[in-house]
């Protein structure tokens, strides 16, 4: 357990010191969401309608930007091999790296969301539902993304490949995340079911994705 905490802490420290990946993700999120209203024009009703979807897609793409680096630096400097001979099973190493990715990318993106919601004329209710759906949904993005990061580890310029490969697996998170975020507006009770399914997707990813990521890492280490 302490080894797991150490690994997460080291990754947080590295993210803080190096900063680049988080900055790029936040910057990309900001740019996409800022440019979109300018492109669409000042139709406030339209912006409210598409707002949650736009923010969710932008968040997913921003998180995708930093995913390829999740295991890459550790592979390049040899840390991954030492981690593999450590006291933790590779499944737990993958889970720790996914958790660190969520804390350093998922959480900052969610924190930035209420501000960007203002750009899209989202009211407090809609924004609250959106943030709630993101808090619950972003762990799935990091954990499922870890599988893609592990699979494309040795591929040159693996980023686009990762996006193609993992796209189908991100669809449930995106669909239920957006449904939950929209539910608050309609006052039709659509929030709860979508939100619960989203939570289920995240919990399933928390358990299953590290198994798949570890299997992929074992192949990559050979």
């Amino acid at each position: 357990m302490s080894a797991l905490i150490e690994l997460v802490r080291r990754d947080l420290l590295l993210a803080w010191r190096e900063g680049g990946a988080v900055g790029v993700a936040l910057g990309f999120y900001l740019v996409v969401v800022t440019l979109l209203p300018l492109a669409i024009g000042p139709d406030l009703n339209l912006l409210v309608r598409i707002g949650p979807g736009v923010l969710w897609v932008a968040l997913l793409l921003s998180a995708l930007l930093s995913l390829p680096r999740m295991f890459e630096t550790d592979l390049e400097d040899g840390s991954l091999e030492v981690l593999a001979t450590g006291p933790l099973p590779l499944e737990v190493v993958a889970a720790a790296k996914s958790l660190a990715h969520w804390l350093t990318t998922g959480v900052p993106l969610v924190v930035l969301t209420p501000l960007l919601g203002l750009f899209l004329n989202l009211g407090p209710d809609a924004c609250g539902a959106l943030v709630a759906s993101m808090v619950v949904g972003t762990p799935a993005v990091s954990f499922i993304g870890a599988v893609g990061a592990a699979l494309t580890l040795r591929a040159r310029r693996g980023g686009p490949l990762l996006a193609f490969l993992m796209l189908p697996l991100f669809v449930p998170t995106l669909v239920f995340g957006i449904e939950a975020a929209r539910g608050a507006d309609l006052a039709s009770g659509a929030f709860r079911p979508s939100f619960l399914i989203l939570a289920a997707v995240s919990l399933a990813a928390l358990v299953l994705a590290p198994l798949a990521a570890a299997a992929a890492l074992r192949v990559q280490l050979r």
Partner: protein
Amino acid sequence: MKLVADRLGAIRGGRRVLAGLSFALAAGEALLLTGPNGAGKTTLIRILAGLLQPSEGGVALDGGDGERTLGEQCHYVGHLDAVKASLTVEENAAFWCRFLGGERGRVPGALEAFGLAALRDIPAGLLSAGQRRRLGLARVLLAARPVWLLDEPTVSLDGGAQAALVAVVDRHLEAGGLVLAATHVALPFSRARELALGGAAGAVRAA
């Protein structure tokens, strides 16, 4: 404690690099793996570390911890140093110490043994290749593990650092540890045997 390899075989990229390799290494002994490039030295070390699966045969540590895999009882120092450029020398060592389950007090001694004590607070990204290598090697002192697997440990080390490495390894051997080192230079470990791995044909002979 005894490390036993039984008729090990390995195929890498369709080419046979190890075949029918058997050896036994007792506690307090070092085994120097020699042989030309591509002879299978790294392959053998990675098999022992649990990073590769042998195609035939197996390895076991008699008298080791039955609860742990062989890889978890080995320190693996490969070609790469597992050093993070943006962490200081001490932070790098402290992380591996805690991650590998060593006692916190081991860090200063390990850095001292490889002459890194004065560089403790500088970012590892500023180290020279030889200094980075010493930091990678210092990992073996950060947690107690019986088997040390060193893959060409002397690369970019100067004379003084090589002597420090030999001293560290000798202390480990005296304490009943086991060491396997792939090397192209003659390392004067106190109780070392040599295992010459074969050439292009992949034949293995014990020397």
